[in-house]
């Protein structure tokens, strides 16, 4: 009776031991450094460290710039994803490659490229400076630009893939029912890809929040204006390790909370709904 029951309960075949062992190693590989970080936190001084102005300033700047950057990525990235997914534009593949290159490029290279374009002697930067007196590098807008530059591809690719997999006949039906092209986008298409937009936003925001290389190259490291949390953390390592650890944990906790709370509802849609 007992053996029968156990046999019936085992619905999936037993996972081979080598797979289990390697998977456990992978989990430890991820978890160990994060746990080590928590273990290094000087818990008794947390209050003092946090009320210090530097980490707070950096955190606020990071939150502010990453939210603005995510908004910019949404405003520009949605139309781009639309064009890539829904038009027969010649050279779409090249455009897609150009627009998502920064995702795989070393962030420092992205920063150098931004300097070449928008720096004081840059391709556009020189004109901006001469004609309008606008100097972007080493300002808070430069932080946002660097974040948008490296993070927007996450939104574009996620939404584009969702737009490809939506059922076009639903849009056709809506059109024959009297909906204008705008109404179709607003009431049919966008709601259909909403999960993908949300998961794309989360990924974009997380990437913007963690941005370091492009920011430090293009925007520099000025307290209060361009010193974001990742930059401040790296700097603190040389002067005040406790503060560096605290800021690292801060970044980790914020990202962890967001990932866990979004996971089931939104990021599950990355693989494409339907």
């Amino acid at each position, binding site marked *: 009776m007992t053996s029968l029951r156990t046999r019936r309960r085992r619905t999936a075949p037993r996972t081979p031991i080598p797979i289990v062992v390697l998977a456990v190693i992978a989990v430890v590989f991820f978890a160990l450094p994060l746990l080590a970080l928590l273990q290094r936190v000087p818990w008794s001084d947390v209050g003092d460290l946090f009320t210090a102005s530097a980490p707070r300033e950096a955190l606020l700047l990071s939150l502010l710039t990453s939210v603005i950057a995510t908004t910019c990525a949404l405003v520009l990235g949605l139309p781009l994803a639309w064009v890539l997914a829904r038009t027969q534009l010649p050279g779409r593949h090249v455009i897609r490659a150009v627009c998502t290159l920064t995702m795989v490029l070393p962030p420092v290279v992205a920063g150098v490229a931004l300097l070449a374009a928008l720096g004081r002697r840059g391709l556009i930067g020189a004109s901006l400076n001469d004609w309008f007196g606008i100097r972007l590098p080493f300002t808070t807008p430069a932080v946002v630009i660097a974040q948008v530059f490296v993070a927007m591809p996450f939104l574009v690719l996620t939404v584009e893939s969702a737009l490809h997999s939506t059922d076009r*006949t*639903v849009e*056709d039906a*809506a*059109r*024959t*029912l009297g*909906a*204008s092209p705008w109404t179709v986008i607003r009431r049919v298409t966008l709601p*259909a890809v909403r999960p993908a937009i949300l998961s794309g936003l989360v990924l974009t925001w997380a990437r913007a929040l963690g941005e370091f290389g492009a920011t430090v190259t293009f925007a520099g490291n000025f307290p209060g204006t361009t010193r974001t949390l990742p930059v401040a953390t790296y700097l603190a390592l040389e002067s005040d390790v406790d503060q560096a650890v605290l800021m690292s944990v801060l970044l980790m906790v914020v990202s962890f909370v967001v990932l866990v709370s979004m996971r089931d509802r939104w990021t599950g849609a990355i693989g494409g709904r339907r």
Partner: protein
Amino acid sequence: MSVHGRIIVHVGECRIDVPIDIATGATVAIIGPNGAGKTTVLRCLAGLQPLDDGRLVGVDGVWDDPDAGVFIPPQHRRVAMMFQQHALISHLNVRDNVAFGPRSRGVGTTAADQRAADVLARVGATHLISRRVTDLSGGEAQRVALARALAADPEVLLLDEPLAALDAATRPAMRRLLAADDLPTRMIVTHDPIDALTLADQIMVIDDGVLVQVGSPRELVDTPRSAYVAEILGLNPLSGVLTGDQLLIGGYPLTVGAHTVADGDVVAVVRPRSVSLHRSRPEGSPRNVWSTRVEAIERSADRVRVRLGAPLPLVVEVTEGGLAALDVGTGDDVWASVKASEIAVFPN
């Protein structure tokens, strides 16, 4: 004239060239094999596929005329299209799906919801009004899709294989809805000759992008202009009144087999090959047997079609050998018989 003109459009390698002439209030079936261009014709009428050449004129003026540079987009034509896979908007519930058409044309929320409720009642789907679209069965979803199309108050209703996705249990109810008298002008794409014969008063046979023949069901069955038409429409539709298993066709009684159709007006379909001909009255077997006269004998390719006169105007298909054995000619008297189970009835 409701909609007329000529559709010329290229889809991939295929060229579609079909004249269109649909009378107001008519039910037109478009029948043909897969890939013949049936759905493309509907999409052109809906405005989802612009014409390459030709011209389409709707009730309210020119819809599409590439030469004159005129193209009225779908939302400004009074058509509604119902798709094979219902194409309901999955994040809206049933009410909001049905109210979508009126809302899109500027009707207020309250009035649009009222309209949705009215139309859902008309298709017998009131109980579904608050349901999520993703929770509907195939038959329910198709019913809601029909309600949604009707709620848009179209002049022309375009139906792409409205019965194909339904199972045998839900098909009769949908067929009844599609046959209702108070529907607008209907254009039904189908691959099923029985649907075409029972639902339409005009049938367009399309093959390989070309209109092979157009006419009433009777005309197409009686005088198929090609072996292809004879092949796909080789059926005898008969209008009659059903009472239990007794079917009265122009005063002549037939016994029909098991069915689930309610008493009243029906269309009965008899396959030409299921009618047998005899020189003398056949003995035994509980069949429908009657005496009649050979009106005409037509030969096309390898088939022989014998047209019978009163009381039942049927076309019977026999082999060359069968006809020789029977030894009858035009004008001769014969006995005809058909099994009760070979007479299919559909609500009209």
